Every structure is written in C-alpha cells, then in structure tokens.
C-alpha cells in the first residue's frame, strides 16, 4: 500500500489540511498519508477533517513541537477523492478548513464532576447519562485539560465505576484526572481509587479559577 509523507512544519492553517487533502487525491485509491506538523491546533484541524471524511486517523506527539497525524484511506474513499472536481485545490483556498483558528492557543477546559449522576430528576437515568457523557468526552476532537471529581462524583474514579476504562483512555491522551481526597476519605474510598490522582481543595480552586471554560455536566 502507498505511504505518502506530508511536511507541513511551519505552515499555518489551512495549509496542513490542504497539503494533506492533495496528497490523498494523489493516492488514486487506498493508502496512508502521514502529515508532520508543529502545533496541536493543526493536529485538531487534521483530525476533524479525517473524522468528517470517515478516514481512520491516529495522532502522536513526537516532541514539544512535532506531531504526526496518520490517516488510512480506503480504496473507495481514495478513488472518490481522486475523481472529485478540484476547484478548491490550490493552496490557501479552503478557509473553511480552519475549524480551529490559526495561532489559537489550546483552550484550558476543566470538567467538574460533582455527582455520580448527570442532571437532576431520576438518578437511575442520571447514572446512565454520566456514563454516556464521560464516553462522549473520549470522542471529542478538543479534549479537556483536566477532569475534577468531587463529592458524589468521586465514586466515578473508584472501583465499581462503569467509567474507569473511558477515564483511563482520557488519561492516556493527556487529560489530567483528579479526585478530591477529602471526598475519598469521607466515602471510605481512599483505597479504591482506580484512575488518576488525588487532589486537595487548593488545587481544585486553582484549576477552576485558571480555566477558560468550566463544564459541569
């Protein structure tokens, strides 16, 4: 199978996406395209493009300013890209690809999980909803920096929680998972933490005050 490498280091949006799309067209069928970029925003834009097109994608941080995004293009998808008319093919002509603005800094998003349920009303439903919410976080293009668990939310990082695997995969992607130590102690869960670290109220207050956006599901 064909492997094409695209060097988009130093390029501002939409150039990395345009270069990658051109490389996909050049495949004329199935193949792999590896794009090298120097910032996380470009990784997000490339990932969004791949998800929209339905290409399998993986991304890897090689160093502080080197990221590799690899897309697998199926025979069918490759042929369909190659056969499309190419009005927007020239470099710089696809501003709609800048889904995340060039030069944007990664937003500091903090999720505060305050209960073992999502919303108020019925707690059985609420438990299904919070489990679905934490899974849906794993599917976002833009991940939070930190997820805080306190009060009843602390049970979700402990033994018996249905969300441990999702939280572990978020942690592996660089999301900081922190549970309130006072809460673990109160619920007698200190020995049962399954994912992430233990924190205190100073750090919780700091994470919340320094956030660009706090999400409380």
């Amino acid at each position: 199978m064909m492997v094409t490498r695209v060097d988009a280091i130093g390029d501002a949006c939409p150039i990395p996406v345009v270069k990658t799309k051109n490389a996909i067209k050049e495949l004329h069928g199935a193949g792999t395209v590896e794009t090298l970029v120097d910032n996380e925003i470009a990784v997000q834009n490339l990932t969004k493009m791949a998800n929209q097109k339905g290409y399998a994608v993986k991304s890897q941080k090689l160093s502080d300013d080197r990221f590799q995004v690899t897309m697998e293009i199926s025979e069918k998808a490759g042929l369909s890209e190659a056969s499309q008319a190419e009005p927007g093919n020239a470099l710089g002509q696809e501003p709609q690809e800048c889904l995340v603005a060039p030069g944007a800094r990664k937003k500091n998003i903090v999720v505060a999980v305050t209960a073992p349920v999502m919303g108020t009303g019925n707690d059985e439903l609420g438990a299904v909803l919070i489990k679905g919410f934490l899974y849906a976080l794993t599917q976002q293009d833009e991940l939070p920096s930190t997820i805080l668990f306190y009060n009843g939310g602390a049970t979700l990082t402990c033994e018996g929680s249905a969300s441990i695997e999702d939280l572990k995969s978020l942690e592996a992607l660089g999301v900081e998972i922190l549970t309130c130590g006072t809460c673990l102690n109160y619920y007698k869960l200190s020995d049962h933490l399954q994912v992430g670290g233990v924190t205190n109220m100073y750090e919780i207050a700091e994470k919340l005050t320094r956030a660009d956006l706090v999400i409380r599901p």
Partner: protein
Amino acid sequence: MRQSKEFLVITFSETSDAMAAEKLFQGLQIPGRIIPIPRQLSAGCGLSWRTEMNRKEEARAQLSKAGIRWQEMAPVTLWA
C-alpha cells in the same frame, strides 16, 4: 497515541432493548459496550451497542434468538 477505527454499531428504537442487548452480550462474553448513538448515525438521542466489525453475524443471530429488536447495524469510525 490517539487512534480511530471502524466499529460495528447496533442501534435500537427502545432504550430497554439496548439495555437487554447489553445484558445478553455481556452474558455471552461478546466484547463491546453501550455507547450513546454516534452522531454519524443519528442526531437523535438513545443508546447503541458498539462491538468489533467481525461480530456482526454472531450479534445478529443472538439478538434474533433472544427476540431483541434492533434498528440498524452500521460500521462507524470512532476513537478506539
């Protein structure tokens, strides 16, 4: 590393059917999990079952044996 791949997603029109399928598949040790219906399949709300692509025939046979109604079985590319 973050990696996406193609999964088989089975949707149901009733939440209770999705939960019955979860119980059935877990009992049979068919790998997979309940997830909210992916956006690629429907803008609606509801639950679905996500499993490996090669489990399609087995899942179909077991659902029909257990009398659980499903709506759609479709391949969807998701973060693994």
